[in-house]
């Protein structure tokens, strides 16, 4: 429906309108301002619609836990009865005549089943041979599919390098080191899909008609116009953290139901398990990497190794393995590798040597 013919009720039913009334942002604000300028006669209807959206309320009646328990008790009881019923039905009469009758029936039916079986085989054989002959004499033309060449755009950041990208649609991406981003050049007409490995921060340009989806393995995160961070390094659990707007996260599994995130919420996904775990994240920490800051918060040594190798483009070797329960915290803004290692070495108790891009940590 064209928005110019909107009535009060249509405005109320328009999710974009609701959003503008309840939690406006610059996008919705400018849209509805322009709309009002072009359609000044709609002013009164919009005022009424806004009033409706704002005041629409329902009475919520709170049921206390005892009733919920009581209802479960009733259900449980009913289930027991159902199960009782099943076992009752299985009781078989013991008298001899019924046994004899059963055998009689069986004999009759087994005699009848055989010719039926052969008849079925015959019909199937005939059907197969007919369809084979038809196919043989009248081969169907193979439909030709016009191949549209798909050109991918790919950005790869080697360890030690981060990169700021602006995509064709205006979305901004900060790609962390050791990550890659791939998408169809200029996107498709109805959707924007990018594939990510590693970590990136997205600030998505708003296009209501063309949702923006980030694929990370079997997980897709879909947004219209929002900003969020995705961490998807191989062999680690995945983290999606939403900063503004709304996104929907879905796993490819049929069983999995999508999770809608509100701002400030995140999900953690362990690909080895079913489902997703909602988490509240620390914004400062999640975005630290975009501000040249490394944050460790009770991080195990394997994570520290991965982060530093990636960050500085070096390879780190442990001599003597660290204590398995060792967790280290620290915050380093725009520091050299030497300074970071020095900072960590006190709490984690190691000595280190740096030779070009080879780093060795010797644990005490």
């Amino acid at each position: 429906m064209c928005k110019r013919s909107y009535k009060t009720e249509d405005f109320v039913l328009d999710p974009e309108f609701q959003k503008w009334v309840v939690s406006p942002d610059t996008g919705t604000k400018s849209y509805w301002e322009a709309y009002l300028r072009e359609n000044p006669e709609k002013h009164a209807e919009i005022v009424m619609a806004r009033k409706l959206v704002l005041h629409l309320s329902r009475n919520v009646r709170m049921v206390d836990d005892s009733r919920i328990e009581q209802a479960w008790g009733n259900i449980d009881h009913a289930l027991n009865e159902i199960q009782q019923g099943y076992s009752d039905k299985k009781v078989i009469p013991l008298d001899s005549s019924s046994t004899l009758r059963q055998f009689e029936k069986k004999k009759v039916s087994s005699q009848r089943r055989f010719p039926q079986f052969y008849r079925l085989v015959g019909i199937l054989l005939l059907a197969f041979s007919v369809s084979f002959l038809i196919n043989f004499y009248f081969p169907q033309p193979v439909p030709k599919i016009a191949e549209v060449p798909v050109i991918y755009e790919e950005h790869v950041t080697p360890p030690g390098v981060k990169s700021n990208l602006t995509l064709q649609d205006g979305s901004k991406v900060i790609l962390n080191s050791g990550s890659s981003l791939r998408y169809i050049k200029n996107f498709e007409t109805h959707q924007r899909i990018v594939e990510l490995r590693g970590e990136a921060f997205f600030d998505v340009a708003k296009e209501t008609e063309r949702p923006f989806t980030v694929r990370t393995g079997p997980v897709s995160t879909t947004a219209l116009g929002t900003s969020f961070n995705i961490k998807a390094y191989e062999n680690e659990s995945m983290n999606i953290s939403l900063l503004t707007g709304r996104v929907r996260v879905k796993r490819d599994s049929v069983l999995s139901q999508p999770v809608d995130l509100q701002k400030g919420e995140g999900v953690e996904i362990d690909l080895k398990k079913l489902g997703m775990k909602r988490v509240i994240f620390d914004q400062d920490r999640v975005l630290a990497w975009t501000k040249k800051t490394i944050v460790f918060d009770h991080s195990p040594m394997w994570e520290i190794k991965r982060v530093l190798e990636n960050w500085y483009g070096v390879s780190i070797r442990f001599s003597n393995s660290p204590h398995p329960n060792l967790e280290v915290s620290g915050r380093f803004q725009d520091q050299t590798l030497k300074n970071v290692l020095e900072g960590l070495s006190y709490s984690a108790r190691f000595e280190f040597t740096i030779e070009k891009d080879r780093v060795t940590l010797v644990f005490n």
Partner: protein
Amino acid sequence: MKSEANIISFTDYDGLWLLLQKGDRKGLEGLYRAFAHELFVYGLTLANDTDFVQDCIQEVFIDLWKYHDTLGKAANVKAYLFRSLSHKLYRESKKRSKWKTEALLENTLPVRLESFESEQAGIQREHYLQVKLAGSLEKLPFRQKQVIQLLFFEQFSYEEVSKMMGINLRSVYTLAWKALSSLKKLLITLGLVLHLFL
């Protein structure tokens, strides 16, 4: 289990559904515990009779158990349960047809007003209007009430609501339109009345 669910609002509904399909009662109980509160709240917005709603919820779960080996994959467990409950309420209320008299009786449960959450600070709302709108929402016909509850308060999408109510998208829209139209009329008359007094 309970405290865990409170801190991180996450339960593996699909896992519970699988358990139920296999005939494990823990699956059924898990689903009941996860959704009982929401189902009661939703049921009570459609039928203001706590015992009646409780009966219907019990039957929904007993049916789930009876037919667990014929259950398919549920794409959205919550939507499935909401749909089953509204069907049950609708059918049972017709059968009993005591619905209308019952709705007039005052329910003794504590009532809380619920409106759209707003991220914007300083939005002024008139409590009086909220109370009036909530009241007239309850007096709408069953299906109209249902569509408003699902779309506005339970935050289902138009597509989901269309599947849940078994009508096409166009009809969902029309039904919601009619409901809003009566609510709008209420606002207009209230406005006129206020005008006369001031």
